[in-house]
């Protein structure tokens, strides 16, 4: 029982990342009809927003080290600590959560620029061409990040307050064996909040209503005198923000390097397709489903019966689902089948 709870939790936080990326991919596909292979790169850029904010906050000056008296020694102390003392240390400690505020405008700008600059010219092109040009863009973004930040992963510590592990076993009355890193719980809650926010935005605001109408029948909405194109562009920006935030919050779990996005992209595409192209609910459900299945498959008990299953489970499930349900879990007819 303990093990099962632990595996579900393990699956949920990974599933949270898949679901956030897949949600953005589906949103872009459902509105603009564009297959965005650069979405993984947006996740990566989000992660590097966190890296650059930390670098900004920890810009240091040389201060005389008082503890060494034999000679003049200097140590690097961040400006923030010099200026604000304890408060400064606290701000640096909170770098990752603060990056959220930092990343939202940046990712929104990047998203809007990308849509206006590149994607808008590709609405009418074939899906293969969309895939290729966004794939090229992803490579370019990756290489730029690599040129600036280097090829090695850059660890980002979680804030002190949530750095340890939570004894959630006690919470459920299951004994002390079930411990779980706090940050992963934070991530899970965070992804839940973001997903809920996106859905609420689409469901309960006028803007969202127009976007949903546009997804159903773009032409009619246009004929009603609504500038649907501009709204779709903003949706692209929102999708970029969602991917970026997923990246920001993932940095304490996995130190980001320049190709972190590509690793997630392939799986997210499988997630989107399993969920059904164009279905937002399907994308989220499939994200969590595949995350949980993967973590169950990596249990030793399962691996001893079916060796190697942990390596292939996601793909295997994708194949089975696509063969049984031709359009994924919740896909609509006629989308992307040509």
């Amino acid at each position, binding site marked *: 029982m303990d093990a099962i709870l632990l595996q579900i939790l393990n699956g949920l936080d990974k599933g949270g990342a898949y679901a956030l990326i897949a949600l953005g991919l589906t949103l872009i596909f459902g509105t603009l009809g564009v297959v965005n292979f650069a979405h993984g790169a947006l996740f990566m850029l989000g992660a590097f927003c966190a890296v650059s904010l930390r670098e900004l906050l920890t810009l240091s000056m040389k201060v005389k080290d008082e503890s060494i008296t034999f000679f003049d020694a200097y140590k690097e102390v961040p400006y923030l600590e010099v200026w604000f003392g304890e408060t400064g240390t606290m701000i640096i400690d909170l770098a990752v959560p603060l990056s959220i505020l930092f990343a939202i405008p940046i990712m929104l700008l990047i998203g809007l620029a990308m849509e206006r600059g*590149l994607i808008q010219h590709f609405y009418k*092109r074939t899906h*293969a061409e969309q895939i*290729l040009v966004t*794939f090229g863009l*992803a*490579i370019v973004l990756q*290489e730029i990040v690599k040129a600036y930040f280097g090829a090695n992963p850059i660890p980002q510590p979680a804030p002190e307050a949530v750095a340890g592990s939570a004894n959630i076993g006690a919470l459920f009355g299951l004994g002390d064996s079930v411990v779980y890193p706090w940050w992963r719980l934070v991530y899970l809650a965070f992804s839940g909040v973001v997903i809920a926010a996106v859905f609420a935005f689409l469901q309960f605001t006028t803007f969202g209503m127009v976007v949903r109408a546009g997804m159903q029948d773009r032409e009619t909405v246009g004929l009603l005198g609504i500038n649907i194109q501009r709204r779709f562009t903003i949706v692209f920006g929102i999708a970029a923000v969602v991917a970026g935030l997923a990246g920001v919050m993932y940095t304490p779990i996995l130190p980001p390097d320049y190709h972190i996005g590509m690793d997630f992209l392939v799986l997210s595409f499988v997630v989107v*397709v399993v969920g059904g192209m164009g279905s937002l609910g399907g994308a989220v459900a499939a994200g969590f489903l595949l995350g949980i299945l993967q973590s169950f498959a990596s249990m030793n008990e399962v691996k001893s019966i079916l060796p190697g299953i942990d*390596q292939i489970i996601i793909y295997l499930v994708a194949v089975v689902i696509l063969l049984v349900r031709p359009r994924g879990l919740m896909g609509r007819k006629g989308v992307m089948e040509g």
Partner: protein
Amino acid sequence: MIAPTARNDLILIGAFAAAVLTAPLWLAPIGAGYPDLLQKFAIYGLFAIGFNILFGFTGYLSFGHAAFLGVGSYAAVWSFKLLTMNVLPAVFFAVLVSGLFALAIGFISLRRTGIYFSILTLAFAQMSYNLAYSVLTPITNGETGLQLTTSDPRILDKMAGIDYGAALPTTDLFGTEMTGYPGFYFCAVLMIIGFVIAVRIARSPFGTMLRAIKSNQNRLNYTGINTRPYALAAFVISGMYAGLAGALLACTDPLAGAERMQWTASGEVVLMTILGGAGTLLGPVFGAGVIKYFENIFSAFNHDILMSIFDFLPGWLQGIVVTVSGLFVGEGWHLTLGALFMIIVIFLPGGLMEGVGRIAKLFRKDGGAANSSVSTAPGE
């Protein structure tokens, strides 16, 4: 483009064969005239020709073609280990095994179309890759990769009385070692054969059927034609090409690793085909050549070489130019690849062949009208 008559095809094949066989001469001035790179040109050209039969002719975008390349490599190395160091059995078995593998995967994947097909092939390739790394280690030797050892049985070689002694044997074709130029010519001849087959397919009723599947599969279904056998045949043929390419990789360097099956490798062949021009006959070979050339030449550039190239500039300008262009070469040659890629897709959706066509059009007086009526056949 030129009308696809039998005579023109003969000229095309002849010119292609001549160009490939003399490649060491005319590629030397641009620094690509050495056997290792030429072998890669031929091998990946073959891979792209095969991929083009599926993607360019039939319109199915497979994202898992590297699996067949990997399987071909493993089959070839096993042939070296168990049977003989002669390359012919290795090539034969690689094509056979990858053909069977493609038959199984194609049979399942072709039940879906569009992106669902792409994801199915991607899923199978990633499964093969992950399994090759983990559970299938007895067959694939996991992360180390499958290598030759001195203790391999090599039954046929033993029967023929060939003993390699303590040294690691090298691959050969009836005594000619498959390294350097002999290796290149072996690959080149096979590529020319592969090219001829592709031309024959393109001109055959079967090829017409494949293009019909690409342009409107529904209509074919409504007229009562079952398209799946044709698509499956195209899938298996292109899988066999990939297997052959994998075998040639193993022939020139008898080592097979799982990373050949990763999705990035599958993506690479898609890039090559599109870069050259999907659906054209020569395009994929071009694309493969350009990408492999950039990979080898650009990645070898470093700071000193750049400094000497831009030596003619004044000092301060030289520094700036070298810093900027340094981003695009050496470690960062992927940046060049990505940028090149975007430029091609944005401005030349038909690939390099479209560019060639446009330039040719400029020089032809009756360009416009005559061109549009005949260019559809290879250009679609």
